[in-house]
């Protein structure tokens, strides 16, 4: 099933640094779709378009459509708050909010108006367990979130996104600031979570792209060069530029 569909999508920032031109492809549900390519290719821009975080940036122009469950989310009438609750995002550096571990996870639920302690407790525990963090922090729930390690912080950020029970989880180079052990944990975790969620992953290197991809899309300077099933695309790329990048000739 196609969860997200890009239909002649274009975006341009006011400073013209990063932009995307005529993007057409779809993201499948219950699979990991990897968006990869050299820096400045527009991968983050694309993620930020899906949950309308670009609304906060100086966007000069957008056109085309992005369909989420068949509905165009670029429509001005879209309820962006509702949209962002369904499409969670984890950023490249762990950003724990300046509160306790518990509050970080309960924050998005409190924003929705949930005040019942029992509901919050339940949701926090469930999300932390889902992010495989519960066993490490259950006795430190009321410590400041910056007191836990970087790898734990990133799983906390994931738990925070999971607390809303979203449909899609987007990860923007989520392991670029982490050590190999933490990286492996997050990668393994996402392989399990894809049973329930649609996952869009921007890896920070080609090796991770190849490891993680069920489906992959290669971006180069604002252009979507090639898409395909992960295995096919990395072993037998159709486009010369893709093969050059995958084999390490540039990038």
């Amino acid at each position, binding site marked *: 099933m196609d969860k997200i569909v890009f239909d002649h999508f274009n975006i341009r920032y006011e400073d013209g640094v990063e932009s995307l031109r005529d993007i057409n492809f779809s993201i499948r549900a219950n699979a990991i779709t990897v968006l990869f390519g050299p820096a400045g290719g527009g991968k983050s821009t694309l993620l930020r378009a899906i949950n309308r975080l670009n609304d*906060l940036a100086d966007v000069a122009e957008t056109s085309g459509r992005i369909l989420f469950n068949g509905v165009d989310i670029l429509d001005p009438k879209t309820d962006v708050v509702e949209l962002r609750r369904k499409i969670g995002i984890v*950023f490249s550096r762990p950003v724990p*909010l*300046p509160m306790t571990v518990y509050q970080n996870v309960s924050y*998005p639920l409190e924003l929705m108006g949930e005040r019942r302690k029992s509901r919050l407790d339940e949701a926090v525990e469930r999300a932390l367990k889902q992010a495989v963090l519960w066993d490490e922090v259950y006795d430190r729930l009321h410590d400041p979130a910056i007191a836990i390690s970087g790898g734990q912080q990133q799983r906390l950020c994931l738990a925070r996104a999971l607390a809303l029970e979203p449909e899609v989880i987007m990860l923007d180079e989520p392991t670029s600031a982490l050590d190999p052990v933490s990286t492996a944990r997050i990668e393994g975790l996402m392989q399990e979570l894809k049973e329930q969620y649609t996952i869009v992953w921007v890896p920070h290197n080609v090796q991770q792209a190849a490891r993680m991809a069920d489906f992959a899309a290669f971006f180069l300077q604002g252009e979507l060069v090639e898409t395909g099933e992960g295995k096919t695309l990395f072993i037998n790329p159709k486009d010369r530029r893709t093969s050059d990048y995958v084999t390490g000739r540039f990038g």
Partner: protein
Amino acid sequence: MNRSFTRARLQEMLGNNLLRLITFLTVLPVVAIIVYIVIKGAPAITWEFLTQMPRSGMREGGVWPAIVGTFYLTLGTAVFSVPLGVAAAIYIAEYAPDNAWTRLIRITIINLAGIPSVVYGLFGLGLFVLFLNFGTSILAASMTLSIMTLPVIISTAEEAMRSVPQSFRTVSISLGATRWQTIWRIVLPQALPGILTGVILGLERAAGETAPILFTGVTFFLPRLPASLLDSTMALPYHIFVISTSVPGMPVKIQYGTVLVLLVFVLGMNLIATFIRQRARARRMW
């Protein structure tokens, strides 16, 4: 050891000590003033001095109405300037688009802080006392002081909010927060110590000012406490001015005593600001 190295060491030593001396010289006058006022003023400070009305043409008795007056004026200034100032700062820091118009507003606010206080006094006289017909009153004086204090509060509050990392806002929005929820739950709590520091520094300046209240709310001598917002009042800064220039045969002890009371009032506020800042720094979660 070669010569240029010795020379560099000599320069280093000289520079270090010279800078230390200059720093010491700049602090010295402040310390000297405070010590001098404390020594000269302390003997005047008695329970009676702090709690009684002035008597015998202010040559005897206490400064109670001036203390109360300054307290009311400071409180009144806070009531008007804090909500307005913080609201304006929120708008400028969080909502206003970054364009020429916003920059103009910001420059105007910064420049407002440089206007001489007597100009605020005359403005208050024209607008509040005469045009709005508040008369010389606590209300008019508080509003005048508020206008003078606003730029300080707005710029420090704006600065405090800007120092909250942008990533917190992005994360909060990405979790389905509205802009206002983000401001209310993340930005303001983090910026609060900075905002409070600005508020207190602004109010401290208001408490010590004479010129803005001169035409708008203070009175030479009023041997009772003000009964309403539309009453005029005595206030410490103006009282000091009066007893130093206009009362023949004024005991020097009372003059210094009054100055000491104002000094403690203002330094006390400063101390509270420092305390809040230290506490917040220790408890900060980022």
